[in-house]
């Protein structure tokens, strides 16, 4: 396998007295598709630039394949970066763009031409070699950028939100394509995005960042089903939040008193009675009560229904607290008048110590 692992050891990055990345330890395995996910300004690009060598960390060090990268510039590292705006060279043809890294290494024209044509074929751009990047569509330009980065045979490919400029359809297509290229080449991908859906569909593992701190690192399934902090719980996927205070707790479950009733959920943070806490339950884990009563049941006021296709989003309110339920689109969900009884099982909900949630959704 070509990919190498990347380690950040006690890395800190400061700009003046502003700390963009707080002390971070992170290991990206060789050959995995790793995403760094977080809202705008949280320090994702900063982390990427420290790995690629455009910035030296203020503290700590970066290792690639076990080798200390301190003091090595971007042209001395086994990494290749795909820029947010691609940064293709507009005056060169596509094949010259792809061959530029080889040209910089002093490889003769015939060899680098062959290699460039080969890589352009790999990304599905045969026949476009002589065109200029400006003569291509957005998705095609994307592929040229990928081919150009792969031409230098990097062990680690760094991608800074490369899909953000594309429209939705193309973005979904490119996701699959990137994943396929990663599988074929075995190169370690570190992919930066603020789109949680993108991170979930593509990655093997994800690091979720907020304000310069990595809040959680884990496999995509774990990030989704076992979020460790309120921020991760609300930033990755949708979650209903019910804030309150713990009234009763044991090793496994905690009971929390909210403005809208008392609920039970898993006691993830070993909370004690009196702790201020939040209960999270995914919309697909809650349901309209129909037959057997679940562990938690409560009345809510129906607000509206959003049709998503295969499922519907039912928006309810408990007082001023919004509550969403996903239901499979198997029947018409309308004509609710008056309070509706909703419910969820304690196993499907989690109680965490209060913290900052993602509120720009």
């Amino acid at each position, binding site marked *: 396998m070509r990919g190498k692992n990347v380690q950040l050891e006690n890395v800190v990055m400061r700009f003046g007295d502003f700390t963009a990345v707080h002390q971070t330890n992170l290991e990206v395995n060789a050959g995995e598709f790793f995403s760094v996910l977080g809202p705008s300004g949280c320090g994702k690009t900063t982390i990427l630039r420290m790995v690629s060598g455009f910035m030296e960390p203020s503290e700590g060090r970066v290792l690639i394949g076990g080798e200390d990268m301190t003091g090595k510039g971007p042209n001395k590292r086994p990494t290749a*970066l795909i*820029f947010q*705006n691609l940064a293709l*060279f507009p005056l060169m043809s596509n094949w010259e763009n792809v061959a*530029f890294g080889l040209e*910089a290494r002093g490889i003769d024209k015939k060899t680098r031409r062959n290699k460039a044509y080969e890589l352009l074929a790999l990304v599905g751009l045969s026949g476009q070699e002589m065109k200029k990047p400006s003569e291509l569509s957005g998705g095609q330009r994307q592929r040229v950028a990928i081919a150009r980065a792969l031409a230098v045979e990097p062990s680690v490919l760094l991608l800074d939100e490369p899909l953000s400029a594309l429209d939705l359809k193309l973005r979904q297509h490119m996701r699959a394509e990137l994943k396929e290229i990663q599988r074929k080449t075995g190169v370690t991908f570190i992919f930066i995005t603020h789109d949680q859906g993108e991170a979930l569909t593509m990655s093997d593992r994800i690091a979720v960042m907020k304000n310069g701190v990595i809040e959680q690192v884990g496999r995509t399934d774990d990030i989704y089903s076992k979020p460790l902090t309120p921020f991760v719980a609300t930033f990755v996927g949708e979650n209903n939040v019910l804030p309150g205070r713990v009234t009763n707790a044991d090793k496994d479950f905690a009971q929390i008193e909210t403005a809208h009733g008392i609920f039970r959920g898993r006691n993830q943070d070993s909370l004690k009675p009196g702790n201020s806490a939040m209960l999270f339950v995914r919309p697909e884990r809650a349901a309209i009560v129909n037959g057997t009563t679940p562990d938690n049941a409560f009345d809510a006021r129906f607000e509206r229904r959003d049709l998503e296709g295969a499922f519907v989003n039912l928006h309810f309110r408990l007082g001023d607290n919004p509550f969403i339920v996903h239901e499979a689109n198997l029947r018409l969900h309308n004509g609710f008048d008056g309070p509706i009884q909703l419910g969820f099982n304690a196993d499907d909900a989690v109680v965490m110590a209060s913290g900052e949630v993602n509120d720009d959704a």
Partner: protein
Amino acid sequence: MHSLIRSYGKPLTSLFVCLTAFWLLVMIALPQAFMIEHSLWHIDRDDQLGMKIDRAYSEMGLVEYDLKAAKTEKVRAEFQTRIDALKAQIAALEAQETEPPKIYGIHNYTKMSELHFTIFLKSIVFALMVTVLALVVCYPMAFTIAKLATPYKAALMMLGLIIPYAINELLRVYAWLMILDYQGVINSALAWLGLVSFEAKTWVPFLENPGSVFVALIYAYVLFMIFPIYNTVETLDKNQLEAAKDLGASTWKTHMRIVIPHAKPGIAVGCIMTFMLSVGSYSVPQIMTRGKSGDWFSQLIYRQFFESQNWNTGAAYSFSLVIVCLAFILIMMKSFKVGIRDIAK
């Protein structure tokens, strides 16, 4: 035109158009046309003219004397016709003397002496050298200001470049004169170090070397080189520099393949301006050489106009220079593959 009328209305638009036309005609076309016209004729002054007139007069005196001595009517009539013919000849000659005929042709261009032609070529070569030197000096500066310096430092550097331009060009050139003079700043410093001596006149004669003119010309025209280059480099996406570096390119490679191709229009404009200004500069060579080393072509033209009063030759010389500049522009455009549009930008 229609959009102009739409945005400014008819009266204002016609005013704009008239002013533009006036400018084009009076400030650009007319002086050039006048110059070209002058360069294409010369006055054919016959050096023998005075003598010819004198000879005709003395001949007429003789014939008149013969006329008085003549006996027969027939002979008298013969002398009379000769006198009339001579009178007509004298009148024609005198007319030619007071108002010599203009002769059109390329005579003014072809009669350039070998010495003048050498100076002409030398000036072009010198101007080319100044242009290349200015480019070598200005490109790194423009790049540094545009891409490497922090905004604050870039502003300071820009200011440092512009402030000298608030001072009259002549003063700036005189400053260089003082620096490079026999007993100027540099020689004084050398004397202080004991390397030269004023008494023994062993100073370094900087001013007798065309290099001193080069230095002053480059100094006088740096901005015309820096600004166009700065403007184009400025528009280069910084990510492209980083991408090149990330792909393993050396600084040299990045400049050759990314920055210079991008900055080509700016480089072409800078070279054109510097070349035209240096080849046509009169004051800089005049002040810097103080006539101690050979003339530049611009000084020659000045002489034709204001010392020899030979406007026609002067016009032809100037126009030759214009043609050289036009040729230079075309060559730059061809070799840099930039269009007139890129340059206008």
